[in-house]
Each structure stands twice: as structure tokens, then as C-alpha cells.
């Protein structure tokens, strides 16, 4: 908790809030130029655009910069006689994972609440299901089959909002964990922090080339530009990332003594 508290400085929280507000500002500017079927359309509008592209960069910005600075400036070395290294790294890993998860959960769930409840309460948006040859009843049925994860809407809007926000946050946290291990292993800290983003882009390119669009990272996390797929398909890229993280964890812990970043 201490580690998380020290990372949550006023400046960092304000910067995060400003970044988080970007989709809202974009929505307020553009809302009259679009026809929204329903509340789900508003929600996906918020999360589309720049976010899928900047997703991994934002995930890395939450905590990895702090951790990388501590390694680069050798602060970690001076903690070593005060706390066992493995314990310290566990604390740092947990802080990175939880902060990133928490930040993205608040972000996604906040926009879910805004789209599903607040925007209609405030009358910020008008729905036009008729533009899509739907009515107020059929649009609900249609929403269940619109995108991957919207199957969950059958169990209630909040269930969908909660689980989908958790899903986005989990992916952000796993990408941040990947960056965490790279920062630990690699000498070049910029390259280490950039690695998750390169993997995200390169992985997307490869899966697109191999005609496996459902397994593209952006489509698994923000599945709004394609037809609904079974939810398990979204877990395939995550499973790959988790495997990679595990391999990096094993490598990092086996070679702690030889790690110049820590001695």
C-alpha cells in the first residue's frame, strides 16, 4: 500500500485525469455528428478512436516510468540491504499491476457509467435506433449480439460494465507486467518500456496477416469494429501474454545475480 500511495502523487493523478478526460471531450465535440442506436453505442464510441492505439503506451505510463527511474538511477541498489530483493520486486510488481488495473478499471467503468446512466440522465445524447432499422425493443436484443462481450448484457448492464471494465483493466495490467519484466532485464530502459507497445503493434500485424483478426490484441480488448465472437477468443492473446510474462519472470528471477540493473 505504501508503494501505491507514494506513486499516487497529486501531479500524477491530475495528469492521469486529464488524459482520461480526452474521450469525454471528444464525445462532447462530436456527439451531434453521430447517430447512436443506444447507450452501448455511446460507450463504444468513447472507447474507440485513439484509445486502442494508445492503450499500451498509457498502460506503461501508469507506473513503469517510476520503476524504470528507480532502476536507471540505481535507487533499487540502495534498498537491497534494507529489504530482500525478491520481496521488494514482489511489492513493485504488485504496485505496477494493481495501479494499472485500478487506473484502467476506473477509466473504463467511469465511461460505462457515463454512457449507460449519466449521459441519458443529463440528456446529452439522443438515440436513433430507427436509423439502424431497429426499434426500442429490438435494439436491446440486437445489442446482445453486437460485439464480443456484449453477450454479457443479457445478465444486466452493470454485469457487462463491471466485467468488461475488469477485462480492459486486466489486459492493461498484463501489458504493464510485461514491461515490468523487460525493465528489470534490459539495460536500455527506453527499449524496455517500448517493448509491450512494439509487441502490441507487431502482434496485431502478424495476426492480421495470418487472417486471425479475432486474435489481434486491439480486437480482443476493444472488439467494436468486428462481429461478435465467442468470449474465449479474446482470451487467446491474453493467454499468450501471460505465457510470455511467466517466461520473463522465470528468466529474470533465475538471473537476478547477474543482473547489472540491480547491483
Amino acid at each position, binding site marked *: 500500500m505504501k508503494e501505491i500511495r507514494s506513486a499516487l502523487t497529486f501531479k500524477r493523478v491530475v495528469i492521469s485525469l486529464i488524459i482520461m478526460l480526452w474521450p469525454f471531450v471528444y464525445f462532447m465535440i462530436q456527439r451531434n455528428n453521430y447517430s447512436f442506436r443506444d447507450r452501448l453505442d455511446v460507450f463504444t464510441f468513447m472507447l474507440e478512436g485513439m484509445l486502442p492505439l494508445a492503450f499500451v503506451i498509457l498502460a506503461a505510463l501508469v507506473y513503469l516510468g517510476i520503476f524504470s527511474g528507480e532502476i536507471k*538511477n*540505481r*535507487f533499487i541498489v*540502495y*534498498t537491497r*540491504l534494507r529489504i*530482500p530483493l525478491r520481496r521488494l520486486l514482489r511489492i513493485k510488481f504488485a504496485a505496477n499491476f494493481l495501479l494499472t488495473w485500478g487506473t484502467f478499471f476506473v477509466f473504463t467503468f467511469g465511461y460505462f457509467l457515463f454512457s449507460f446512466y449519466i449521459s441519458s440522465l443529463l440528456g446529452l445524447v439522443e438515440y436513433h435506433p430507427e436509423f439502424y432499422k431497429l426499434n426500442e425493443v429490438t435494439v436491446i436484443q440486437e445489442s446482445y449480439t453486437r460485439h464480443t462481450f456484449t453477450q454479457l448484457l443479457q445478465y444486466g448492464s452493470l454485469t457487462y460494465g463491471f466485467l468488461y471494465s475488469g477485462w480492459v483493466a486486466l489486459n492493461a495490467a498484463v501489458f504493464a507486467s510485461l514491461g515490468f519484466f523487460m525493465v528489470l532485464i534490459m539495460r536500455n530502459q527506453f527499449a524496455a518500456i517500448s517493448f509491450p507497445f512494439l509487441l502490441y503493434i507487431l502482434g496485431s500485424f502478424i495476426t492480421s496477416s495470418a487472417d486471425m483478426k479475432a486474435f489481434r490484441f486491439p480486437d480482443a480488448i476493444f472488439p467494436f469494429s468486428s462481429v461478435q465472437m465467442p468470449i474465449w477468443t479474446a482470451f487467446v492473446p491474453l493467454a499468450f501474454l501471460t505465457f510470455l510474462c511467466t517466461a520473463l519472470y522465470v528468466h529474470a528471477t533465475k538471473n537476478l*545475480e547477474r543482473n547489472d540493473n540491480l547491483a
Partner: protein
Amino acid sequence: MTVINLDNVSKSYKGIQLFEHATAAFDQGKIHGIVGHNGSGKSVLFKMICGFIHPDAGQITIDPVYRDKRSHFPVNFGIIIDRPGYIGGITGYENLKRLADIQGRITPQEIRQAMTQVDLNPNAEQKVKNYSLGMKQKLALAQAIMEKQEVLILDEPFNALDADSVHSVRELLLAFKKEGKTILLTSHNQEDIDLLCDQVFRIHRYALERVV
């Protein structure tokens, strides 16, 4: 009483042989100087003593007083190895507070006292990334002494210090010696070694030769 004992220690680091059957004993309450040319292995020696890296062969024994069953590392050791470590975006005091909070053994007053001892202003708002090299060095010294560590392992503690600071740090180290602390230090300045050290070891042909 011997605090640190090296027995037939061999070590190669990044493919370069640095020590071969090196043997030395460092006694309590003395200042020990380690000299040697650049790259001779002074920092590696200190890292081995601290348990950050292990000898390829031989043994380094630390007095059980400075060992903890729960840790692979010596306790009550204050260190500066290679260069200072810090978090750039916060003040010097906040840096030391972060380190002190890990064990929670000392009060904020004791942190301030350690900063004052090395001529740093604990109330300064200046972030460490804006510190001069000498100030960073003083901050490193402050973290090495703030928890009243009994054994000080100081790799080039006078690096980048101005003449007045060198003088006051020398005085500080001599005062620590009087208190019974054990100090191992390296310095490229022979005057530091001559003025401070009771025993001097030279790293020569992969061994630790006692020269004084």
C-alpha cells in the same frame, strides 16, 4: 575481532578475471583502504561483501553479529557502491525517507540529522535530479549512515566533493572510527588513504596485498 573475512576468493566478472585466491581480513573499529587501478575489481569486491554477487570460489564470511537468518545480506551495513542512487523527481529528504521507511528504524529527526552531518539542507525543496554530482554523493553518504550502520562500505566516498566537504567527510569518518565503526573505503586520492586508513590493501595480480 574480524568483521569481514575473505578466504581464497576467486571471481571473474563479465569475462574478466578479477580475483584469484584473494585472502584478507577486515577488523572491527578500523578504517580499511582498498586501492587499485581502474577496473581492478574494487566495486566487485564490495558487491561480493554485500552479497549482491557471489564468489566463483572461496568464501566471504561476515561476523554473525551482522547476519540475519532471514536474509542473505549483511545487516547494519551502510553502503555506497559504484555511484549514488536516487529518485530524481523528489527531494533529498524524501529520498532518504523512502529508504528509511522500509525498515522503519529511525525517526524523521534522525534522517534530518544525517543530512546535516553531510552538509545537506534537509528542508531544501530542490529535487535530486537538480542536485550537483557532489550533492548526490552527499545524499548517498547520508543514506549510508542515517540508520547508524556499524559497518560502512564506501566506494569512492569523496568523489565530486569540494575541498570543504572532503574535509568534513574525513572528520566524520574519523569520528565514526572512534565510535568503533568498521569502514572499508576506496579512493583514488592517496591523501584520503594516508590520512584515514589504518590498513591498506592493494588489488594486485588478482589478490589483495596488504601494503600498510
